[in-house]
């Protein structure tokens, strides 16, 4: 590729580590809460630990280019293992700690790992289960020896013992040689993509990918030594690798690891990170918890909360964006901050957040606005493993819930004929390991990579907007763009709606199935003295249908505001009599709707949506949790929705 070596900068993670030891030696590099106390390691101490492990790996016979699998929850020792692997000339391959044994087996076998560094007994057991299939795996190194006393230690050693062997060895010169040959094109890490279709693929990222991306993104958000992150997302995910290793090493900030997965929330509060990433789900859960607890609060507190959150919503985002805010609004916001917002942020552990990101899925505007109202600089980014995370991100002061931002520094974007987004950047991956076909079909000769997502660049702001997976985007009968997920996401932002499936490809108008959320709607029914005996009965209650019709009308109005997508308004809908369920094959285990199966299974209902009937009788086969099958019958109401007139395309 075009970009050459950087101007005399470090070209590998071990080199960055050496730079950090020289520059920030005594500053905290890693913290982990253990036995109720935050233990910390300075850059110099961390480097010593890493060296000991790297030397230990050499004594075990690690060769240049070996893959070393790393499995476990976020702990400093496992982050060190990644760097130690690089120092020994090997390639770290972090794997998801909650992956099933056969998934781990697939990855270990695919990359031919000779060593695995794992967190605890759970991971050791998982590997033991499939060990006979793994001819190349030689040695397992474990961190927490609890419960492993009785295991056969012939091919298993504790992390501390490997380090001790390393300290006692005389391999320092070998290690120095192996570090010396690392350059910008050496492999930095290999990450397996979760793979929604087919087998996971091993994405090979070079030092160039990781270091260039880390430098660009650190500059973009002014990350610096002295920032704090909480490392709690899976280590096998590219984002965690960039935040906790790439950017942490580049900017020299401190990585904090929680005490246990369950203590994340209180650890977050104690650390008060300045740079924070969470998927929309985490923000959503936090907001729900706050709201539930406010419902239980006394009347005065409730009044105080709502009054000053309203001030926050009005003024907070404007302040963040650096817009003009009147003196009296500033004063009111100051008061709100003192009474409500400050304490709330502190409780959530977000008091010090300077840069917050969310990505991965669409985030509901009201969730987004809530955190912005608190004065938290929450932004969105769009990325993927193949891009070393960053494709687009929102600059400070240009944050909106419906875009994913402008191209990250160094990234070029291109939108194909069919709407698919392509990008080219210094972060573009080297290859899929042992999979030249997939590499070739994803990345072209000029380095452009297909994202598989359809989107467009908004002319007014230059921001990218993602509308759907490219393969799901279709055309309606009149040629208008059909983007079901775009509409479904808007519907799902209503707490009453759990799931929505929109139909309309090659049809003259769109229709939808809707699943109500039993918790939210059930709660509403209880408060309004509405009796119901089953999910099915509640789902067909006239008042429920009226409420949903209201939501659909609101969504239509907002869809209509977008000239490109105005054709996707929902004309008719019905509320399903059963929840879409993974056991029935209607969803994936990660709760994504399987459109084709839903279309086949409920073809009678779809037909009814289009032939003008006002109700339909249907029988559906269901699978119970224990695997037995049964049948439910229902008569479903079909409603017409209020459709808004499309905005004038010529308005621009």
């Amino acid at each position: 590729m075009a970009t050459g070596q950087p101007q005399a900068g470090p070209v590998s993670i071990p080199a960055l580590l050496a730079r950090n030891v020289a520059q920030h030696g005594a500053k905290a590099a890693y913290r982990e809460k253990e036995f109720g106390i935050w233990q910390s390691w300075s850059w110099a101490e961390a480097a010593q630990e890493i060296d000991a492990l790297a030397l230990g790996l050499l004594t075990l016979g690690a060769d240049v280019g070996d893959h070393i699998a790393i499995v476990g929850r976020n702990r400093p020792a496992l982050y060190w293992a990644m760097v130690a692997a690089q120092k020994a000339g090997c390639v770290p391959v972090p794997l998801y700690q909650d992956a099933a044994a056969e998934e781990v087996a697939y990855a270990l076998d695919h990359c031919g790992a000779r060593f695995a560094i794992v967190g605890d007994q759970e991971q050791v057991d998982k590997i033991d289960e499939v060990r006979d299939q793994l001819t190349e795996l030689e040695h397992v190194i474990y961190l927490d020896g609890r419960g492993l006393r009785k295991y056969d230690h012939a091919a298993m050693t504790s992390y501390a013992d490997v380090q001790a062997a390393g300290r006692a060895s005389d391999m320092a010169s070998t290690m120095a040689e192996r570090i010396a040959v690392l350059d910008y094109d050496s492999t930095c890490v290999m990450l397996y993509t979760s793979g929604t279709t087919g087998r996971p693929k091993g994405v090979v990222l070079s030092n160039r990918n990781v270091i260039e991306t880390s430098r660009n993104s650190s500059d973009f958000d002014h990350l610096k030594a002295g920032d704090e992150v909480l490392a709690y997302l899976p280590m096998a995910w590219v984002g965690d690798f960039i935040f906790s290793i790439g950017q942490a090493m580049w900017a020299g900030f401190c990585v904090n690891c929680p005490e246990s997965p369950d203590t994340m929330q209180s650890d977050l509060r104690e650390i008060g990170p300045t740079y924070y990433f969470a998927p929309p789900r985490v923000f959503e859960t936090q907001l729900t918890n706050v709201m539930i607890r406010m419902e239980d609060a006394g009347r005065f507190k409730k009044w105080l909360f709502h009054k000053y959150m309203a001030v926050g919503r009005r003024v907070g985002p404007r302040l963040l964006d650096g817009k003009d805010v009147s003196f009296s609004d500033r004063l009111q916001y100051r008061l709100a901050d003192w009474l409500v917002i400050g304490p709330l942020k502190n409780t959530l552990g977000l008091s010090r957040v300077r840069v917050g990101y969310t990505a991965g899925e669409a985030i509901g505007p009201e969730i987004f606005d809530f955190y912005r109202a608190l004065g938290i600089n929450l932004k969105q980014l769009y990325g993927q493993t193949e891009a070393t995370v960053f494709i687009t991100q929102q600059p400070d002061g240009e944050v909106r819930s419906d875009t994913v931002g402008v191209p990250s520094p160094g990234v070029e974007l291109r939108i194909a004929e069919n709407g698919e987004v392509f990008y080219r950047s210094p972060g573009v991956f080297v290859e899929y390991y042992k999979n030249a076909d997939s590499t070739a079909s994803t990345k072209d000769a000029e380095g452009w990579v297909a994202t598989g997502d359809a989107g467009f660049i908004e002319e007014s702001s230059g921001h990218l907007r993602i509308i759907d997976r490219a393969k799901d985007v279709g055309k309606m009968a009149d040629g208008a763009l059909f983007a079901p997920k775009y509409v479904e996401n808007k519907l799902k932002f209503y707490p009453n709606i759990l799931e929505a499936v929109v139909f309309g490809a090659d049809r003259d108008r769109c229709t939808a199935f809707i699943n109500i959320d039993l918790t939210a709607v059930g709660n509403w029914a209880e408060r309004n003295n509405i009796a119901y005996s089953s999910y099915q009965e509640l789902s067909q209650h006239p008042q429920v249908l009226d409420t949903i019709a209201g939501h659909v009308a609101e969504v239509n109005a907002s869809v209509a505001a977008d000239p490109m997508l105005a054709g996707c308004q929902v004309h008719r809908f019905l509320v399903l009599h059963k929840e879409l369920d993974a056991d029935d094959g209607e969803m994936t285990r990660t709760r994504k709707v399987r459109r084709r199966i839903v279309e086949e299974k409920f073809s009678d209902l779809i037909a009814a949506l289009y032939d003008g009937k006002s109700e339909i009788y249907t029988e559906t086969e269901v699978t119970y949790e224990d695997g037995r099958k049964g049948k439910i019958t229902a008569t479903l109401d079909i409603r017409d929705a209020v459709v808004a007139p499309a905005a004038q395309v010529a308005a621009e």
Partner: protein
Amino acid sequence: MLDEGYVTADGRQIGGVMMDMRGITLRFGGVEAIKNISFDIREGEIRAIIGPNGAGKSSMLNVISGFYNPQEGEVWFHGKRRPPMKPFQVARQGIARTFQNIALFEGMTVLDNVMTGRLTQMKSGMLAQAIWKGKAEREETANREIVEKIIDFLEIQAIRKTPVGRLPYGLKKRVELARALAAEPKLLLLDEPMAGMNVEEKEDMSRFILDVNDEFGTTIALIEHDMGVVMDLSDRVVVMDYGRKIGDGTPDEVRNNQEVIDAYLGVAHD
């Protein structure tokens, strides 16, 4: 009986006799709760006491813990005959227990509850503790360290500062185990550690019991209703029925003992 113990199926070395109950009889007025029972508990083993309701299991545990003094029979501990003792004296000998009905301080946090388990090890007086300088402070720090290791071991970090009253049942049971472990016992008595738990909680608790035995070498005597759990966990089982001992041996031996099958698992009524 002089011997060196035995090796279990999974390869653990079990030591000599730690606790020897000889001809124990316990009466409440005219009711004979325990009738002339003898059995032993060996160093390092997991010993279960099972039996139907009212068989006298909890009474037996209470005899071991010193809560009841039997009218007849002798309790031998570490090769010495134990004179009648109060429970706190027994606790100082290195015997800790949990209760069938959870007995925690509901208003106190998990941490404080577990710290009370260190009470028998604290030596500074009330005044010194109130002033909390010098020795008392050092003592608390040292004890806290031990307690934190147990909290880590039982994976209850997330509820460290939560008042026990707010916890669900399964977690309370785990906190009780933590408090018993805090005393660093040689012999741990568990009275129905898995009563009222769901399958998942039972699995967790079983793992903790095995880990305690494995990691700290603690000898464990437990009472349990769930036969499956008992058979999986324990090295040897005593079976009681109406205050009598009707079986004693490895899980397999007990499972095939006709009297045990009749009494505990029920006889077919035709």
